[in-house]
């Protein structure tokens, strides 16, 4: 005879992750506001390299994704998992290691990114030792989650847990594959893949980080917290299952839509488009399932601020997941890509879906674990309205800016010339929109500060029920073998978590493998170009400075095959040009012009003056000045290790080249320094600026002189 077991839920860990969510949310959004202001007032970089756009834009994205949303995920998972499984977390010690480990990783990001230690892959900028730490902590989270699942007192795994398991396994795969790096020093490494292949891996990762970090765990949380808040079960459990399997299957294929019109093989682009369109179905299935859960409870939405947040979150999810597939259509993408339209799209998702769902859950959860009422409903209501206004003020100007700039780039005069041949004209046109966006961001952030105060007061008013007592019957250990109903195939998955994990792993691997294998193994997918040669040692060092300063955050290096781009920049980019690019630096946003054909366009002196004061060469430019490049000495102690690493990765430097690399480097630096001197610029040849100029002058130069020998992309 089984007896009722008494146990307790660990609320302290939920509270800790909740506080971390608020703290990092405020920090991440404040950095976001700072970078937003730099886009209309470059002086907001405070005149130093550590707070300049290229270095702290990744800090903003990492902080809001992995610190704000990350901690919110763990808060939601640790709360709901325990209750859905009727068990305390597997190990309080592992929970603590998970919590502090994750915070340490974030702190290391806050230190290393402003210092310029970056891998340059978007949303995966952290260098290799931190990547390893992330892996370890993620595994700790996995053990803790599966340990809890194994000791559960509830036989069935609710659909929310399916989403958590899929999140765990997919993020693990994405993170590991996108971290294949060859370290050359403690905080510097090169990606193993180059050019097109590196781009494919990165955007397979980047897109699925959105899918499996910003979406699936939040859907799991939605499936638990929304029924709880509305006090009624989910509208359709069947739909939730269909939603789950089709979402995780389809999402993983959609990555190449980030690379439309690039030199990625055409079939891979089309595959990305097709699956992106299909993605509307499961995404909207989830949104509709959420909204219809509130059927008959809409009167509650008027009263209950938590439900208001949830409704806006689901609506934002619906808008973003409709817009995403539309943006992946080539015709729309041709205008939208590289503009603020994408920034608007991302922020509808981030501010609306992730932000509002997090706020809704926090307003619901904090009073419960503190056994009290919310300190002020009025303040929460204020937060809701100021947050909603903030989203509108953010998104609408960004859409406007995106349409405007995207169309201006493409506009021709009747004579067939570019109407706006100077890129800067299109930038200056949208400055007012960037100011408005800043206001939107400030409104949204002010709402979060009010929430922090409100929840802080709520915590002070109540007292934390650190260990919430509960009781449940244990699972009979042998029932799974004896009960014939258990053997039904469609039951097995929701009973056997390991089988479930393996099955979802297979499901998410299919898409990635079909897209990547041919690009990696079939040579004809990346046609080589004989005139493309490895970078000189000085150019390689300059390229690493380009990476360090985060130039890729504002400048692309991929010219699309449109007349509007070949007129503006030059010959469109070919896959074979990037074969030595570890990592690829195609970028995803053109706050400034594309640089792939920059080499030879301007003199060395122009580059020097432009880096020292962009306004002197391009009046009105919003590019920040880089005076430190002129005073800082280039670190050439790394040259040998860098050349060696490149040789290991297959870049054909001849044997022994690494030993003479620094001589070659100095020789080329002297030439540039001498050329500058002729233009009355006195700068020593050992300064960083020399290496950067060497790299910028190399960009696209390989094929300029040899146009006739270049194969096309398709």
């Amino acid at each position, binding site marked *: 005879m089984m007896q009722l077991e008494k146990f307790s839920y660990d609320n302290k860990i939920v509270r800790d992750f909740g506080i971390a969510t608020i703290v990092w949310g405020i920090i991440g959004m404040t950095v976001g506001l700072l970078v937003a202001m730099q886009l209309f007032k470059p002086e907001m970089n405070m005149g130093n390299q550590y707070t300049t756009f290229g270095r702290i834009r990744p800090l903003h994205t990492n902080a809001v994704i992995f610190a704000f949303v990350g901690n919110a995920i763990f808060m939601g998972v640790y709360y*709901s998992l325990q*209750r*859905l499984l*009727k068990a305390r977390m597997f190990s309080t010690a592992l929970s603590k290691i998970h919590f502090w480990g994750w915070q340490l990783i974030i702190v290391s990001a806050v230190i290393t990114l402003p210092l310029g230690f970056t891998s340059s892959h978007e949303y995966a900028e952290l260098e290799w030792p931190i990547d390893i730490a992330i892996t370890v902590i993620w595994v700790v989270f996995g053990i803790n989650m599966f340990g809890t699942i194994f000791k559960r*007192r*509830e*036989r*069935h795994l*609710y*659909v*929310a847990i399916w989403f958590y398991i899929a999140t765990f396994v997919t993020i693990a795969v994405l993170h590991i594959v996108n971290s294949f790096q060859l370290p050359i020093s403690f905080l510097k490494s090169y990606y193993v893949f180059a050019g097109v292949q590196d781009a494919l891996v990165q955007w397979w990762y980047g897109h699925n980080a959105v899918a499996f970090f910003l979406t699936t765990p939040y859907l799991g949380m939605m*499936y*638990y917290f929304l*029924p*709880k808040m509305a006090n009624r*079960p*989910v509208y359709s*459990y*069947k739909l939730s*299952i*269909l939603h789950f*399997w*089709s979402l995780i*299957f*389809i999402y993983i*294929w959609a990555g190449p839509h980030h690379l439309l019109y690039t030199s990625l*093989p*055409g*079939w*891979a*682009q*089309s*595959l990305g*488009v*097709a*699956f992106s369109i*299909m993605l509307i179905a499961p995404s909207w299935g989830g949104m509709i399932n959420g909204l219809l859960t509130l059927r008959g409870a809409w009167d509650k939405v008027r009263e209950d601020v938590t439900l208001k947040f949830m409704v806006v979150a689901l609506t934002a999810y619906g808008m973003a997941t409709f817009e995403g597939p539309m943006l992946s*259509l*080539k*015709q729309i993408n041709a205008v939208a890509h590289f503009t603020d339209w994408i920034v608007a799209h991302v922020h509808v998702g981030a501010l609306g879906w992730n932000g509002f769902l997090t706020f809704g859950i926090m307003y619901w959860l904090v009073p419960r674990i503190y056994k009290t009422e919310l300190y002020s409903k009025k303040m929460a209501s204020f937060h809701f309205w100021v947050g909603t206004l903030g989203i509108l003020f953010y998104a609408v100007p960004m859409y406007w800016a995106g349409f405007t700039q995207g169309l201006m780039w493409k506009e021709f005069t009747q004579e067939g010339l570019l109407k706006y041949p100077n890129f800067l004209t299109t930038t200056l046109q949208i400055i007012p929109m960037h100011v408005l966006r800043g206001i939107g961001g400030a409104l949204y952030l002010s709402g979060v500060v009010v929430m922090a105060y409100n929840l802080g007061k709520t915590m002070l008013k109540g007292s934390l029920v650190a260990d919430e007592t*509960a009781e*449940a*019957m*244990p*699972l*009979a250990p042998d*029932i799974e073998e004896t*009960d014939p*109903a*258990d053997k*039904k195939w*469609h039951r097995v998955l*929701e009973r056997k978590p390991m089988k479930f994990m393996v099955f979802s792993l297979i*499901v998410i691997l*299919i*898409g990635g493998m*079909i*897209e990547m294998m*041919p690009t990696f193994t079939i040579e004809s997918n990346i046609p080589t170009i004989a005139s493309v040669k490895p970078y000189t040692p000085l150019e390689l060092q300059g390229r690493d400075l380009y990476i360090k300063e985060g130039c890729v955050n504002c400048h692309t290096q991929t010219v699309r095959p449109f007349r509007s781009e070949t007129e503006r920049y030059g010959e469109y980019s070919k896959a074979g040009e990037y074969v030595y690019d570890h990592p690829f630096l195609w970028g995803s946003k053109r706050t400034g012009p594309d640089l792939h054909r920059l080499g030879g366009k301007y003199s060395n002196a122009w580059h020097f003056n432009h880096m020292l004061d962009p306004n002197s060469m391009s009046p009105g430019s919003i590019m920040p000045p880089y005076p430190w490049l002129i005073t800082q000495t280039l670190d050439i102690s790394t040259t040998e290790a860098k050349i060696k690493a490149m040789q290991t990765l297959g870049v054909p430097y001849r044997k022994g080249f690494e030993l003479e690399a620094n001589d070659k480097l100095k020789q080329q630096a002297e030439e540039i320094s001498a050329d500058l001197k002729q233009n009355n610029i006195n700068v020593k040849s050992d300064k960083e600026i020399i290496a950067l100029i060497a790299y910028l002058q190399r960009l696209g130069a390989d094929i300029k002189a040899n146009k006739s020998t270049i194969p096309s992309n*398709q």
Partner: protein
Amino acid sequence: MFKQLKDLAGGEFYLITSLIIFMVFFLIVAVYLYKMSKGHIQIMSNLPFENQQNNTDEED
């Protein structure tokens, strides 16, 4: 628009294979859903509500 899906210089193979794989997968999920009993659905959708506990099996 359909040019994007048609003019792939031999790449159609990947596209068609992928769509077939998805269709097969989708059909499997559809059968799985069709075979689920109402009672089971009821139990599953009530799991977030704490007062119930299901550690025995319902009959189909």
